[in-house]
């Protein structure tokens, strides 16, 4: 072979042999913490962390993997089984009791107890991260539900836009006044069990009803107070106050209807504020707490993410550092509150962003009365739950019968898991 080719080959050989060791030395100094999340709203927080670590000259960096919400349980469980779970995981809080039951997370009780703001962390969310008195996952980013209404449509219907409904009778009257030939007074997703949990069950809870008992061992869906709540919405279907396809609507369907101003009221989460103000700025909307029947109590669904360290992480200390950073003012206010997520620390509710956009304050208030059920078989319970609700919505069964049958099937699922 000729001289140039030989020289070239030697250069390649040298590069291949020496190169990796050069880059390796650079990487050896930096500990990389693997983080999984299902929300894009976390990215600025991660960037902020990495920027600060670099500014301080600390050899610590987060590498994140975005996992679609629907794929999260499968992917995370597979990773756990393969021993390839990340160092930090931001996970849908309703899934945490299951993962605690299989011992997926590290015990954070001691480090949690040392937190100065531990008493400000949302109790409903913290409850789901706790098992047998030990804390395995901490509240991280909150999603909470409330009643959203179109103020312009309210005015057009002769209703006071500054006085949203505070009782079921008022809600019903408003829906009736708002329903015209091409607008429906209310909208919800009959086909989405998660949607129903988030947006309909709080009406039952505000009325005194329950989904499960305190420790998730008994299904209580057929409680008369819950039956009343579901009946309230079935009546809306039968009286044409919601779109005809509601019984099988997806979560997007009713939100899209609201955004097209074809639906005047809906119950949904805080994430809708930035969506509406950015993408549909012409819609003048208000936010109100989800009322109980007689206006004496309010409720909401405490959703969102908890943050935890899977067992088997090689960098638990660094992972905790990430968690502490994520729970600090810098992130909870400057990233989350700024982008419309409610801080999980109640001492941070009064921040500049919420003062500028007071509708967030209603959501923050909702978080204080919010609830979320505790169960290790959340996803599996969705199946009989949805069947029961849909049977009630389509009129296939009476509400009492539908919920009674669903309660039996839900109880069977719970019993099998114990």
């Amino acid at each position, binding site marked *: 072979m000729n001289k140039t080719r030989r020289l070239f080959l030697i250069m390649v050989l040298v590069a291949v042999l020496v190169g990796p060791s050069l880059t390796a030395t650079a990487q050896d100094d930096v500990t990389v913490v693997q983080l999984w999340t299902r929300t894009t709203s976390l990215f600025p927080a991660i960037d902020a962390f990495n920027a600060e670590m670099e500014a301080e000259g600390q050899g610590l960096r987060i590498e994140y993997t975005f996992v679609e919400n629907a794929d999260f349980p499968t992917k995370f469980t597979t990773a756990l089984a393969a021993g390839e779970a990340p160092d930090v995981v931001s996970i849908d809080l309703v899934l945490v009791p299951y993962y605690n039951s*299989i011992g997926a997370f590290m015990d954070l009780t001691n480090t949690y107890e040392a937190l100065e703001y531990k008493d400000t962390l949302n109790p409903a969310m913290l409850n789901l991260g706790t098992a047998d008195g030990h804390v395995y996952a901490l509240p991280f980013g909150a999603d909470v539900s409330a009643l959203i209404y179109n103020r312009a449509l309210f005015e057009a219907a002769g209703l006071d836009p500054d006085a949203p409904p505070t009782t079921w009778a008022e809600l019903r009257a408003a829906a009736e006044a708002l329903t015209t030939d091409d607008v429906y007074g209310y909208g919800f997703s009959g086909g989405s069990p998660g949607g129903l949990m988030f947006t309909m069950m709080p009406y039952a809870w505000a009325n005194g009803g329950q989904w499960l008992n305190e420790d998730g061992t008994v299904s209580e869906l057929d409680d008369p107070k819950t039956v009343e709540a579901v009946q309230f919405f079935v009546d809306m279907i039968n009286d044409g106050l919601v779109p005809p*396809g509601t019984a099988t609507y997806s979560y997007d369907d009713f939100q899209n209807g609201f955004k097209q101003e074809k639906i005047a009221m809906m119950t949904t989460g805080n994430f809708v504020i930035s969506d509406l103000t950015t993408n549909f700025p012409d819609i003048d909307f208000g936010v109100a707490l989800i009322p109980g029947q007689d206006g004496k109590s309010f409720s909401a669904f405490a959703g969102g993410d908890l943050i935890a360290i899977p067992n088997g992480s090689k960098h638990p200390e660094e992972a905790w550092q990430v968690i502490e950073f994520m729970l600090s003012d810098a992130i909870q206010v400057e990233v989350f509150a700024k982008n419309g997520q409610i801080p999980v620390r109640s001492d941070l509710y009064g921040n500049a962003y919420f003062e500028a956009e007071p509708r967030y304050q209603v959501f923050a208030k909702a978080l204080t009365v919010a609830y979320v059920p505790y169960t290790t078989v959340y996803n599996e319970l969705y*199946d009989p739950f949805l069947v029961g609700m849909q049977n009630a919505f389509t009129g296939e069964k009476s509400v009492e019968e539908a919920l009674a049958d669903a309660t039996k099937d839900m109880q069977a699922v719970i019993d099998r898991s114990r």
Partner: protein
Amino acid sequence: MNVSISQHMRSSAIVFHVILRRACQRLAGYIFILPAVVLEGLFFGYPLLRTLYISLHDWPVLGTKHYIGLENYDYILSNEQFWEAMRFTGLYTVVVTPAIFIVAFGLAVLVNQGLPGTTFFRSVYFVPVVISFVSSSLIWLWIYHDLYGILNYILRELHLITEPIVWMGERKTSLPAIVIMIVWKTAGFNMVILLAGMQSIPEQVYESAALDGANFVQRMRHITLPLLRPSFALAMVVSVAGSVLAFDQFKVMTRGGPANTTRTIMMYIYDTSFAYFRLGEGAAMAILLMVMLIALSVVQLRVLQRQAVEY
């Protein structure tokens, strides 16, 4: 001695070479099929055995797996939800299969006439086959949308309906709607198979039948259909298997609803295994489904090939 030693050696050498060549040819044959066998073993055989293994265990995702013998099978066979899913899958298969084949046969006959534009239409009818079931489901979901879908718009413009029909709202409308979508999507494939079968029927048979005074319908009944039986059997077995394993269209269009009335057995297996993490149960259901499908295919082939027709 008539044959010399060297001649002996030469003939032995020849015999030796013949035997060696035959052995090499056989070996070559094995080597040719080796890649296929390896792939089959790797991607079908091994997973099948592993699934069978899992089905005999209580298989939590993390933690020890316990051998429980046929307990999973016991539970499944007495589980109403399993049978509900099987019944719906059966209903769907029984409805969609004749629909597909009537249309596919009609199209094949039409295309076989040799009218102008045959090549063009043959391709047009086949195009839906190459898009994915998910894409097709999403397209048709929009067509069937109760408020913004084009179908309801057309029906209202033609004054055939006054209120929008919620197509995906209940099984009695969503099942026919999805069947129509599937016929649109798969008839072309079966048309091609039937067409190939039709075109292999010799012209002379038709000619002699025409000479005997047979009309179009009689030719169809006594020549085309019987001679088409092998192609028909192939197309049918493949189509029925596909229908029994239906997943995409129902997952996307109805999500199994309302109230699990449109949940197919594959959806139930998927939920059990990957949403509820009951892997042993899911594996057992998959094995049961496979056994039933094999039995179904054998029955179909027996029935359709009972008398080989030759003219």
